Each structure stands twice: as C-alpha cells, then as structure tokens.
C-alpha cells in the first residue's frame, strides 16, 4: 500500500484535488433536493478524499 502511494503520490493528490472541487457540487445538489441519504453518502466520499490529502507523500 505504502509503495503504491509512493509511486503514484502526485497523481493521487491531483485526483484528490479534483474530487475536493467536484464533491461539494454533488453535496449541494443532494441537499437542495432534500435527499438526506445522498448528502451522507457524498459527505462520506468527501471524508475519504480528505483522508487521501492527509496521507504523507
């Protein structure tokens, strides 16, 4: 796992950035439609993305 992160670190961070920028749009849409389940689902994905950012390079 660590080797994978070392090898693909920069790509993972780029993907994490894209997710961080896109995920709130899904969160917003779900919240506007009153879908509590979708809000929680996208929030979980957002938390996952932040965990990726938290990972040491």
């Amino acid at each position, binding site marked *: 796992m660590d080797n994978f992160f070392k090898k693909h670190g*920069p790509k993972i*961070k*780029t993907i*994490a*950035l894209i997710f*961080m*920028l896109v*995920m*709130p*749009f899904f*969160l*917003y849409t*779900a*919240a*506007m439609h009153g879908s*509590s389940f979708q*809000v*929680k689902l*996208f*929030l979980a994905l*957002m*938390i996952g993305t*932040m*965990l990726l*950012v*938290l*990972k*040491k*390079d």
Partner: protein
Amino acid sequence: MTDIFIVKWIFALSPILTVLVLMIFRNWSGSRAGAAGWFVSLIIATLFFGAHPELIAYSQMKGVLLSLNVLYIIWAALLLYHVVNETGAIRAIGIGIQRFSGDKAIQILIFGWIFASFLQGVAGYGVPIAVVAPLLVALGFSPVVSVAVPAIGHSWSVTFGSMGASFQALMAVSGLESSYLAPWSATLLGIATFLCGIFAVYVYDGWKMVKHSLLAILIIGTAMAGTQYILSVSGMWTLGGFGASLAGLCSGLAVAKLKIYNQTPPSQAQPEMGLWWALTAYFILIVIVSSGVMIPSVKAFLGQVKLSFEFPEIISLKGWVIRAGKGKAINVFGHGGALLLYSSIMSYFVYLSKGFYKPRAIKTILQKTVKSGVPTSLGIVSMVCFAMIMDHCQMIYILAEGISRVFGSIYPLVAPWIGLLGAFMTGSNTNSNVVFGVLQQETAHLAGLSAALILAAQTTGGALGSMIAPAKILVGCSTVGLAGKEGPVLKTTLRYGLMITGIIGIITALVSFII
C-alpha cells in the same frame, strides 16, 4: 460544559490550533495540515456547535466557490510564469537589470526589493525567493543574505501580487467590495513598502548601507507605493503588485544612473534574449487586463457568463442562522484569472512564433504548472472549506467575541499579528486571509472598529508573514545550497518581520483612534 464561554472559545480555536501545531512543530505541508484542520472542525462542529449534514453540505459548496475564485488566478498566474520562464526570459530580465549598476546597495534594492516584487506580481508562491536568491549568490552575496533579502524585500507586494489572489480571497470571505477594502490596504502596504526596502538593505550591511541607499529607497518606494495605491483604488487591483514593481523597475533603473550610485562599473554579461522580448508577455498582460477592467464594453462582453448558486437559510442545531442568499459568483470569462489565461495563451504563441521555445515546450510548461499548482490548491481548498464549516457553526463569531472582550479598543494593535500568524502557519497570505478574514471582520464589528482598516491590517500582516513562512524559506534555501540549514535565515527574517509588523500594528492603532 460547552455553555461556559471559555470552553466554547477553546473548542472554536481548536481547528486553527491544529493547523498551527502541525505546520510549526510537526513540519506538515499546508495541504496535510489543512485536511487535519478540516477533520477537527468537522468533529468539533458536529459534537459541540450543532452542525448537521445539510449545513456541512452547503458550507462546503460555498467553500469551493470561494476556492475556485482564488484558484482561477493562482493557476493562470503559474501558467503565465512558466510560459515566460521556459523561454529563458526571467533570467534575461535578471541579467538586463544587472547591467545597470555595480553598486551593492542598488543591486540589493533592484534584485531583492524590486525584481523580487515583480516576480511576486507575476507568479508568487515562493518564486521570488527561489529565483532571486541564486542571482544574488552569483553577484557575490552570502547565501544567508541572498535568501533573507528577497524574503524581506518582496513581502509588501504579496497582497496585490500574484494578480491580487490574496486580495481576492479577502474580498471573497468578507463579502466586501474592493472599493471599500483597497484604500486602507494599499495605504498600510505602502508603508510596509518603505520598511521592507530599508530592512532588506539593513540585512546586508547595517545602518551605513541604509544611509547610503536612503535617497533610492525614498524615490523607488514612493513610485511603488503610489502606483500600487492608484491601481488598487481604481479597480485594477489585479495589477496592483505587478504595476507597482514595474514602476519600481523604471524608477530603480533611473536612480541607478545617479552619480552617488554609479561609482562601481556595472556587469557586462550579455543575456541570450533581449530585455524587450523578455518583457513582451507582461506588456501583453497589461494590455489585456487594462482592457478587461477599464473598457466598459469589453468588461460587459466578458462578464456575460457568471457561475452563481442560490443558498437557502441554514440553521444549526444550536440555533445559529445563516441567511439565505447567493454564494460567491464566478465571472467565467471576465475574472482576473481569465484575463491572465488569455495573456498566457497569447504570450505563448508570440514566443513560439519567434522560436524561443525548445521542442515539446508546451508539455514541460503544463507539467510544471500542475506540479506547482496542485499542493498549493489542496492547501487552499481544505483551509477554505474548514473556515466555512467554522463560519456556519458560529465558531468564528465566538472566537471574534472572545478576542474583542479581551483586547477591546487596543485590538487594532493585535490585528496585523493575527494576519502574520496565519501566513506563518499556512505559508500564504491568501490562506491567512481565508482563515482569519471573517474572524477579523467580526471582531472589528463587535469592537466598533472600521472593518476596512482591520482587514487592511490583517492582509498587511499576512503579506509580511511571507518573509517568515517556513514553507517559503525552505524553497529559497534549497536553491542556494542551504537545504537543512534554514535556521540562520529564519532567525534573520523573523527579527525584521516582527519589527515591521509591530510598526504596522502601532500605525493601525493610531489611525483607529483618529477615524
């Protein structure tokens, strides 16, 4: 327990404290510390401040809209810098300046004060220190002086540099217009211009050298501070730092011809590229930004497409209400970032048509832009998003209330220190404004002070924090063989950074008593 104010205040402070501790004591990058701050704010907001999933969802959307406004400028500025640098133009500009004077004080001022500020105006994010430090070493200055001088010299131009990204962030988080914020920001930063010039020279050779360069500092400083003021209050704040440093370059080159600064013969080195060609991209930038800002028909044409979202009223489980309204709109084609993007594309084709690029240069340009843009962007997005969670759960209001209760009328003295702290911990004036902008605004409101003045002190402190930010010092040290030996440089910049911030705090306090 959370009904006790001090406990609530400490909980509200914990995300900011987390970022501070991780960056200063654990040497974490801005992006990782920002993500950690995001988690802490999420947990604290949910457990103690009544956050619920919908509130988090809306706050994150607002955070991303704010971030996109800042990132648009940052990415386009980085692209322009790499489009220019790939031709060898930055080096050519450096050599071109060197040919004007052999006087050490003038070299320090032109490179460490003006040229570093020029680079801040067009790129930022550590580029001024990274580019100028090796040039100063090549001119015979010690490595510590070579890193410390541009670090101190460029910091006044950070807020309006990088096409005004930090100022844009301040406007975005405070919701205030440039016409309200710019006059005081440009005034305090104008005072900092002179102080940065004086201390940049002082670092090299003490008061004797300051006395020798005083006339030059007065002339060049007036040109730079004056130009920055005029550009920022007239709505062209994206060009504030860049235009000021260009005015500084012109006045600096004129001052270099004065008899007292012309005792030593200048360098005879020949650049590979003419100075005018090297500056072409920046002339294009001036034309495009001026047209986009000053010509009403062009401004109206470019401003037709705006990305905007409506938000409903949001109420936390503790009863804190965020009014319904529109989030920060993004002017897709008329944004400062868009104007920079047009300039980058046009400059690329001009340089390409003149054969200044090596084969496959476009790939290198894009790779370098992505490489430098991603870590900065991750830090900004995570910090803006956690600042928005704090804002939507009353945490920032509680922090502000606590500070205003303790400091009251002497708060203006403290305001620039908060900005400095933010830049020190996050390595960026932009991040400092994002994290502390709303806090300062709320505190000013509660203490009955001018928000424009307090936010000006915030961004000035944030700009000055650039000279002591470990993230930037590390970049500079790595370019002159001081990697792992950053201590002496940080000690030097810390001393002068604290002095200048103290002076700005006193001036802010005096002004707040008058207005």
